[in-house]
């Protein structure tokens, strides 16, 4: 009996090693999601895509609203009026920015199909970061999104980030469209 148990244990370990030697697709996907989670949490995504609140220890990202972007309920503020050497201002949530480019709002990175990245493809996401364009080929992605830093990610890391973002629970939050500077609109809109 004891021998049988021992043999069974050895076989089980051997089987485990054999399985571990050939990771299946689920393992690879899980590893990619975990890699993406690590990158998202170490490269500042929450700094702007998660709304900040004034917590007990001071301003901090409200992780109950992780990565939902600029809260729809906050609406579209007026452009900042700045003087002196200042060039840009940010909302208390750290999700709306006003500067020479107009007003930009951080995107909803959760996989909500209508308001987030739910209908994006991995290729769209990679192209968006590489080309600094919405969906990879549309309007410019605006400051302060540091695409000139993130475009240096490898394809694998961008795929991992996308896989992680797609694994999050979808949150419906319609982020406003960016607002162009008044002079640009006055110059160009018929």
């Amino acid at each position, binding site marked *: 009996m004891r021998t049988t148990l021992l043999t069974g244990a050895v076989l089980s370990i051997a089987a485990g090693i054999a399985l571990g030697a050939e990771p299946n697709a689920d393992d690879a996907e899980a590893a990619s999601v975990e890699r993406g989670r690590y990158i998202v949490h170490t490269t500042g995504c929450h700094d702007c895509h998660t709304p900040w609140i004034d917590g007990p220890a001071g301003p901090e990202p409200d992780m109950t609203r992780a990565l939902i972007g600029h809260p729809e309920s906050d609406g579209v503020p007026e452009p*900042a009026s700045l003087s002196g050497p200042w060039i840009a201002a940010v909302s208390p949530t750290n999700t709306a920015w006003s500067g020479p480019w107009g007003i930009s709002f951080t995107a909803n990175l959760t996989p909500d199909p209508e308001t987030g990245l739910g209908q994006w493809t991995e290729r769209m996401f990679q192209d968006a970061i590489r080309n600094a364009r919405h969906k990879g080929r549309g309007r410019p992605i605006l400051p302060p999104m540091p695409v000139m830093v993130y475009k240096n990610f490898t394809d694998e890391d961008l795929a991992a980030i996308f896989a992680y973002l797609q694994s999050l629970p979808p949150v419906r939050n319609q982020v406003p*469209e960016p607002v162009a500077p008044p002079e640009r609109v006055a110059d160009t809109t018929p």
Partner: protein
Amino acid sequence: MPPVRSPLPAIALLALLVPAGASERAREDGTGAGAPPDRLSETGLYEPGTLRLSPDVLAFSPRYALWSDGAAKRRWVYLPPGTAIDASDPGAWQFPPGTRFWKEFSHAAAVETRLIERLDDGTWRYAAYVWNREGTDAFLAPDYGVARLPADGAPGGTYVVPSQEDCRMCHEGGPTPVLGFSAFQLAADRDALAPNVEQAVDGDVNLPALASRGLVSGVADLPAVRQAPADALERTATGYLHANCAHCHNDRGPLSDLDLSLSVADAGGVDRILETLLNRTADSTVQSLRIRVVPGAPGDSQLVARMKTRNPNHQMPPLGTRVTDNDAVALVERWIAHMKTPEGNTP
């Protein structure tokens, strides 16, 4: 809005301080073939030591032109000796390694010449060359392009040289990176109503000329070019949309999930264009307009609003132009105005 309050991530500050495009290019071109030549004169377009076109290049002009803020353009192609284009897919011709395309942009004088080259490993390489003031040669632009190149005659006196990313954005959004040299664009029957099109000149190659020279294979499939417009207005309008929009908005590229095809070369041709435009809801709002095209009502159609505006957040195309193509806007407005309304009446 209150002033800066939250602790600014260092990374966001960096974003504010580094001008877009001033950073080094993110990725290598992946070809392993090294950089393109430093000078245009070294690319094979001209006879050595001259600005005379090489006898090995063929001039062409597409039937429908991409609007480039009024720049005049000339185009040439080189095919390695003994090779031919596989034209069996009318929407995605396959070019032999060694194929090169050049496009020259001029305002008061030649400003830039772009080069697309297919390398031995099958990948494509993009290069932009900026002409010197003397007009004696053009020099390889930085990978991040030139945001404001002084150029006499260009809008505002400045000209934008594209970055590598800009090149890939337009040229890698569909089934082939070669735009403007296709069965549809080289068909012999020119469209006299097409905006911004240079007259074809003697010596320009078109589809019959390529076929007679044996430079295309699969010629039997060439009549499969799909366009069945209802009338001349629809023919010109959809031809314009194909040339100016279909490199991104097609059924075979990375934006196909938008379900917006403006390519006459996609299956369904003009019918498919109408299917994806008419009374279809866009995924964003522009000037309060949400419907891509409202038949009979150009003023209610987001397509027209996006063509008219140069608000950088809304304009279409999103790059390569800073000035509205008024002739094309008038064309598309006329086309939409003459469409049948849902009641079946033509306004």
